[in-house]
């Protein structure tokens, strides 16, 4: 905790959890898609589902998807802006077993038909936790630079990646592995201290058995 956690952040109101946190969830979904989305399907659960209109959660999520930060004054007009940019947005209420009361499940699609589905919760004070990406369990808070590395689940890949990160002089703060089935595809979630450049990331993407590597900047 530091002074800027107490006097701060600068944000669009009205609520750290239902507005600012929602922007951050949307922003991660947008970053994971990579390209501009043409459609967004958003399921809202719990308190999000009940109060989204009054708290502007819908505007906040869409604003984040379009790349805005929690302090962007355009958040108020995000739904209109999305329409202008040709993004179809659908909101639906859902009952998700055991989910945090402020949970959203966002599915984005780009012009090439690529999709990404992200499940995240706004846990208070503007903090978020992304718990699932494309069906794979993750645990991302977005406070540190995070690498998401999709790879074939074969021996040596993890060692190769982590050794490479070390060779770049970067320290790993957290590591999590998620896999659908042994021997199929797996996802490494690696939080690193400090920064990780796009060039360094290319080094990971070009490794054998690595399918995709995404850097999530802290947001």
């Amino acid at each position, binding site marked *: *905790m*530091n*002074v*800027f956690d*107490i*006097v*701060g*952040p*600068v*944000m*669009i*109101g*009205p*609520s*750290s959890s239902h*507005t*600012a946190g929602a922007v951050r969830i949307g922003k991660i979904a947008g970053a994971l898609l990579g390209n501009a989305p043409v459609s967004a399907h958003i399921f809202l659960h719990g*308190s999000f589902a*009940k*109060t989204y*209109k*009054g*708290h*502007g959660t819908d*505007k906040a999520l869409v604003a984040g998807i379009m790349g805005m930060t929690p*302090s962007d*004054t355009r*958040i*108020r007009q995000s739904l209109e802006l999305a329409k202008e940019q040709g993004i179809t947005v659908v909101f639906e209420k859902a009952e998700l077993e055991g989910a945090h009361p402020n949970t959203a499940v966002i599915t984005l699609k780009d012009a090439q038909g690529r999709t990404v589905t992200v499940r995240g919760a706004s846990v*208070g*004070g*503007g903090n978020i936790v992304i718990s699932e990406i494309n069906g794979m369990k993750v645990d991302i808070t977005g406070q540190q630079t995070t690498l998401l590395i999709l790879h074939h689940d074969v021996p040596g890949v993890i060692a190769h990646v982590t050794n490479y990160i070390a060779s770049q002089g970067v320290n790993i703060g957290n590591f999590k592995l998620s896999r659908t089935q042994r021997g199929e595809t797996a996802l490494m979630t690696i939080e690193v201290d400090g920064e990780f450049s796009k060039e360094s990331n290319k080094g990971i993407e070009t490794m054998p058995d690595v399918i995709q590597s995404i850097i999530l900047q802290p947001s």
Partner: protein
Amino acid sequence: MGIYYSIENLVAAALSENKKISQIVLTEQAHELEKTEEELYHIMRESFLVMQQSVVEGTAPDMRSVSGLTGGNAYKMKCAVDSNKNLCGKVFGNALVRALAVSESNACMGRIVAAPTAGSCGIIPAALLSIMEDRSLNEHDVIMALFTSSAFGMVIANNASISGAEGGCQAECGSASAMAAAALTELAGGTPQMAAHACAIALQNILGLVCDPVAGLVEVPCVNRNAMGVANAFVGAELALAGIESVIPADEVIVAMKRVGDAMPNALKETSEGGLASTPTGKRLKKEIFGEV
């Protein structure tokens, strides 16, 4: 050093170095965050500018929240003060205007600084900008006072809570009020000990304050509670600056706040199931805004 774990430590550090609390905090944080004091000051200044702007935006006559529940109170108050019709003079009147303005700006999806939260965002700006205007203070001293208020807030966060869901409105408007009281005291030339008493007095006045938002939105009674919060901040600072001391030390008041919060039923902690939220009007408004829930 533990200066963010007890008011006693915070005050002792200021006294031992014969510096203002704000300077102690700035130096310590620069060390902790591995940045220069100038860089941290600049970051805080950005927040200060947003606070100023949010006052301007919130006093517009046509403010209206998405729900329609709030908007326009700051404007009404401003009209009363500007036409010399209010009770307590310009300084206090304008403090109320500012608190209402920032809080309404928040409710209308304006840009604000959470201090410590969005729900209580009007209190510290109102207190500091009002004394700044009244005493023609330069922005440097006011921005430094934000570091003081922040430090008091950290002690509260570390020992109690700054979240309505955990401690009721004690934790949000109450904390903001106490943080503002300490900052006002420093700005008015009070000692670190006085700032601690101001914090203690402000905080003890709001023990038991519940979080009962109508329709679950950060609007009613949140906007008007921000006005109460700045008033209470001035109470704390005024009494402390006059040499009045809190019999119960600030650190013990903070723990008392925590215990009261723990004893509060969930219905009164940001679930909109009690207090004003469950009044006939409160329930009717919830139905009107959200349909059958």
